């Protein structure tokens, strides 16, 4: 292993992690300086969900695709979300395993699992880039940070996938790229939308607490009725309304 790779795997990562932790701490303090709203109302609704249950439900909602209509009715998008975030988790884990527990990667099956998950996430990244470019809705809401973060992660996945076997003897290029990208990633994340996982506990905490207190959580799903004999469709009035007078 070259000195450069050793530096990239250890000192550089440690420095980047410390930097990220400091910025995150500042970020959390920034969010906490905003006052938390107070709810004086007595509980409403018939759900009888205590606030703490509502908070837990709210945090767990991302793992329950049947709950939100947006997840339920778009299983392909939800599968992308799962694959992408499993890839993120394993690619981050890889950055610790390679320098501190390289023995784990001597098992060929483990490497295969890592590679499959990370290459899957890379493929999802490509799909997401295309979707963000092609869909007029996604284009309209996207910022340069959204594009850059997505491209950064997708490229990072590719180098993580190449680095999973941890074979510097076969060429250090992918490993160097992976670790330098990881360091950049760690330093960039607090300033980008990738830090959304930092806000997730806050937003879902307050939303869950409020919705439970108001009897909305757990979200009651639509009950599918039988098919009725519908009224024949008719055209709307040609003029919008008489309200203009």
């Amino acid at each position: 292993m070259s000195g450069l790779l050793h530096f990239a795997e250890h000192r550089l990562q440690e420095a980047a992690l410390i930097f990220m932790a400091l910025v995150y701490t500042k970020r959390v303090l920034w969010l906490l300086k905003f006052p938390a709203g107070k709810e004086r109302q007595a509980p409403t609704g018939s759900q009888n969900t205590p606030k703490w249950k509502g908070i837990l439900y709210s945090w767990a909602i991302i793992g329950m695709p049947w709950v939100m209509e947006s997840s339920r009715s778009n299983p392909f998008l939800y599968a992308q979300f799962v694959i992408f975030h499993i890839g993120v988790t394993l690619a981050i884990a890889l950055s610790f395993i390679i320098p501190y527990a390289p023995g784990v990667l001597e098992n060929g099956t483990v490497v295969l699992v890592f590679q499959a998950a990370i290459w899957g996430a890379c493929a999802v990244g490509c799909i997401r880039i295309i979707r963000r470019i092609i869909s007029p809705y996604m284009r309209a809401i996207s910022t340069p940070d959204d594009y850059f973060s997505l491209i950064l992660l997708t490229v990072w996945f590719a180098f993580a996938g190449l680095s999973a076997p941890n074979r510097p003897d076969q060429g250090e290029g992918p490993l160097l790229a992976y670790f330098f990208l990881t360091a950049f990633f760690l330093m960039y994340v607090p300033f980008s939308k990738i830090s959304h996982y930092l806000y997730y506990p806050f937003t879902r905490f307050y939303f869950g607490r409020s919705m439970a207190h108001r009897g909305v959580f757990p979200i009651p799903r639509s009950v599918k009725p039988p098919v009725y004999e519908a009224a024949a469709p008719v055209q709307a009035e040609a003029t919008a309304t008489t309200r203009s007078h």
Partner: protein
Amino acid sequence: MQALERSYKSQKVIERMGKKLNRQIAGSLAACVHCGNCTESCHYVLANPGDPTYAPAYKADRVRKIFKRHFDWTGRVLPWWVKAGSVFTDEELEELKDFAFGKCTNCRRCSLNCPMGVDFAVVNRMARGLLVSVGVMPAGVAVVSKDQWEIGNQMGVLKEDYLETVEWMSDELVEALGDPGAAIPIDKPGCEIMYTINPREAKYDPRTISDAAKIFHAAGESWTMPSEGWDMTNFGLFSGDDELGGVVARRVFEKAIELGARRVVMSECGHGYRSTRCEGPNWAGMDVPFAMESSVVTMLRYLHEGRIKVDKTRNTASVTYHDSCNNARSCGMFEEPREVLRHVVTDFREMYPNRAENYCCTGGGGAMSMSEYTPRRLKSAQVKADQLRATGAKVVVTSCHNCVDGLADLIRHYKLDMKVTQLVNLVSDALVIEKRVAVPVARIAAALAGRRILVVDDEPDVRTFLTAVLEDNGATVFSAADGDEGLALARKERPDLITLDLSMPGMDGGKVFEAIRKDPVLAKISVCIITGRPELRKLIYERDVPPPEGYLDKPVNEETVLTNVRKILEVTGEHKAH
């Protein structure tokens, strides 16, 4: 340099945003990842395919960019990187107004569908409040807010008109039931229930008051209506004005405390229920010493306790139920109205989607008072119209007056063969009361017999409609197509009542009204304004002449016209005669 170029209003909006931000809103503004999952949850998007400006995330970004530019370091350091941006001109505030008021009803459907827990409805309400604080708002919002600040209710119903209406309904109920004990009590101290209503009931739909009174009477309830603080609606919810919200909620709370009521019951109104029951204590900064509930819950309790008996075979039409956004997505009322319905109708059909996933009536968030957005609102209503049509039902029930108006408008626009009603009407119709005395049919059939009414409206359809409704009920009707002709006919025929449109070619309705009031001969004729522009209300009420006896917003239906004309002629007219 930029700060120097910023308009006064823009500067105030930015300063006040800093004061309005709480942790929930800041979190919602910081956490959006632009995943697009919210897009298809919005009825505006579904009805306007291909137009991304309706996407909730896009709309939220209009506020988010200001937040990022001024309150979040990422936007301060690299604004273009995160599309952060400030507001500098009043025109930019007008654009923001278009999004905050004209492209969102704050229905919260996107909030429930956001994986991150971003509550866009709360963000949008904050934006509305900021704009209102600098006077940038739709004209209708300004009028309604002013009425609620000054007159005490959002439809500008004067206290004497409210009391007259309640008295009228009380008399009719006593007569119909043949029981003096059915009279509606006003300001009775120490009751179990203080019943509060939407001013729309006093103005357009007094039958809901008498139906509720009938149910309270049948249940043997100890109840009263207050003479003040009777409006449980709160335009502060729609305008984002927490101060107004607090003042209005406090009026209700203080009256309940004064009367010593143990429970405040709110009639079926989604935003009123949410405003008074949920947000009111927060806005008013008050912990209230009494319970509060929706009349839906009250009626259900009476059914559970056997205090009222109902016969569902009296309501045999096919019925579907529309969940009001404020009742359902913001207050968790899902099953109670359905349980009541199962007691009082024979053919109940769910629309789909339903409960927390139901679509907005499209008239929510104060949209019915913003006439400039009506074409946009009705286009977005296509989603709701399809939902209603698929049920094949003849009646749509909703526990919200706003939804009643929104649904009635879209039903008319999309020519659906349905009518809208509320649970209180169905429960009242199904109520089994031993001492029932039928109202004489002849009285209903010729309710306006002998009355002479002049209809002044430039729209032929409206003239034909009003003439038919009034003539069918026994009135002699004259009609005029413009103000000059109307004034001439008024002088010639001396009618008992004039229905008057405001926007007309030539002499407009406002001038006609003033001419009538200033003419010693015509001044005693009752006038009912019927206009499609509620924002013109102030032009009438601020004139230095006595106000009109009635003021209706188009579109109007037969029942509304008849009820109001009867009220003016039978109640107000009698008072004037005396």
